[in-house]
């Protein structure tokens, strides 16, 4: 299945901004993070289709997922 992955802030360093990739059906977010080679502790915020998600959630075909390190402002 095809998943669009977006990386933000420091997670982009040495990686990419946004890419659509093939993943095995039923993959969890935690497994995606592993496949991308991102240390899991660097990811504190995960959005799937604009909603907060957790590493144990599974993805479905066509999902857009966004990963953020700790961020803040205001």
């Amino acid at each position, binding site marked *: 299945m095809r998943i669009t992955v*977006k990386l*933000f*802030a*420091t997670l*982009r360093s040495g990686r990419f*901004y946004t890419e659509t990739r093939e993943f095995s059906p039923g993959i969890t977010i935690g497994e995606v993070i592993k496949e991308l080679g991102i240390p899991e502790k660097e990811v*504190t*915020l995960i*959005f799937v*289709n*604009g*909603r*907060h998600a957790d590493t144990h959630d599974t993805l479905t075909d066509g999902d857009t997922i*966004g990963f*953020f*390190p*700790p*961020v*803040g*402002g*205001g």
Partner: protein
Amino acid sequence: MDKILRINMGAEGGPKVTVAPFGDYAGLGGRGLTSAVVSKEVPPDCHPLSDANKLVIAPGLLSGTAGSMTGRISMGCKSPLTGGIKESNAGGQPSQVLARLGYGAIMLEGKPEGDDLYKIFINKDGIRITTDNSLRMLGNYDTVEKMKKEFGDKIACISIGPAGEMKLNAASVACTDAELRPTRHAGRGGVGAVMGSKGVKVIVLDDTGVSMRQPKDPDKFREANKVFTEGLRKHGVTGEALPAYGTNVLTNILNEAGGYPTYNFKEGRFIGASKISGETEAALETERGGVPTHACHRGCVIRCSGIYNDKDGHYLTKQPEYETVWAHGGHCGIDDMDKIAMMDFLDDDIGLDTIEMGVAIGVAMEAGLLKFGDADGAINLIKEVGKGTPLGRIIGSGAAITGRVFGVERVPVVKGQAMPAYDPRAIQGIGVTYATTPMGADHTAGYAIATNILRVGGFVDPLKPEGQIDLSRNLQIATAAIDSTGMCLFIAFAIMDQPETFQAMLDLINTFYGLSFTGDDVVDLGKKVLKMERDFNMRAGFTKEQDRLPPFFKTQPVPPHNVTFQVKDEDLDKVFNW
């Protein structure tokens, strides 16, 4: 910092200075002090531009000390924009300098008869007030340049631009940063108009020959400051994200969350967001020889600001903040970072609140006065404000008035003050704060984004009404207390997640003053401040009907989540039941 300086600008024979001890206000600082004075001494039914109003400028309890992050200053008055009490908060150097000179507050009172402009110079030897009509209608940058020529470069300035002189509702008060640039503003609520009504163009502060305020227990204070600073450095938000990208790191995340107000609160995502994101902005600053990491005042360890150069590598403005980039960017459908930076410079120079201006321009776009995305048109509108043309004065009076003049239904204001950069339908906790804070729509008054979006201090689902009342209440209480210390609100990211950093903040206060403040005392202080503010507003005629969002937030769903604001009115009325 043991005295209060009152300047009666309307005294017979010219401004009269009185310096007195704190008296009834002992133990108060920052917002706690400004709100205490306004609620006690300003008649709630007075006209905000009349002689009865007061502009109270107060450093926080820890300003002027060696404590990190203590350079915030509070400016309080009855707001010409909202008609209620106002505390507008700014960074820059003046807080530290004023506190070191020994003043817990400057109060501008009364109103001069004529239209002379005054400058006020304060140093260790005293206070000198002189008329200076050569400053008339000068921008903040030129005003500060003239002050440098006259008083040297070891000064800090508090000034107004043409907008303040014209007493426009969106007028700010500028504070200079460490490089003497007038870039840190008490933006909200028209505090610049009140300073203008007092005839004061600039206050120049010089702390030459005075030293830092000394703690009761210097060793323990130093130790507490070390733990506090380490706590800020090790937290991901205050130690990494804010220094590297600044506040504008939020653009991408709010856009991703579908809570980034776009085209005047019509949509929750902006197609041009990545072009004006913090990541893009920081890269541009580095590429052009600017700086992506810069402190607004000495003693700040977060350093969330930066320097933004133009295409030719010349200074254009300080790093535009998230709120500014949003107001002039996504809200207006503009995705050109250089044009947004130009608007930031113009707002700073003319002395305008960037949020109020951007939102007003977006409302004008909705009315068809200009098209969404018309960056040059938006720049021209700000220049009109600076020139004081009739159109400029309308825009410079803020979003509510602009909406009324041009017949717009969708006007995102509460208590007449423009809403900042978070859609309250997609992030319901911030909607509770917008609706209920005594300040009018203000994100800083109870920053629910932390917990709704950033997962700081736990997590409350932003798309549902459950848990938002408690969240906003607790944040509003904590904020009112932090705003009284002179500390930057951004310490909240670290102290909400790290108990030892919170304790270090308490230790700073306790070792400085010889107190034994606990977490409960902080809560009590916050409640006391909010109670005074709510009480003033009630006496000024506010009822629960003003603690509401504009009706369209309940009836018009915002994409992509297609949600409306679902917190019930009767629940909003419970925010201050504690």
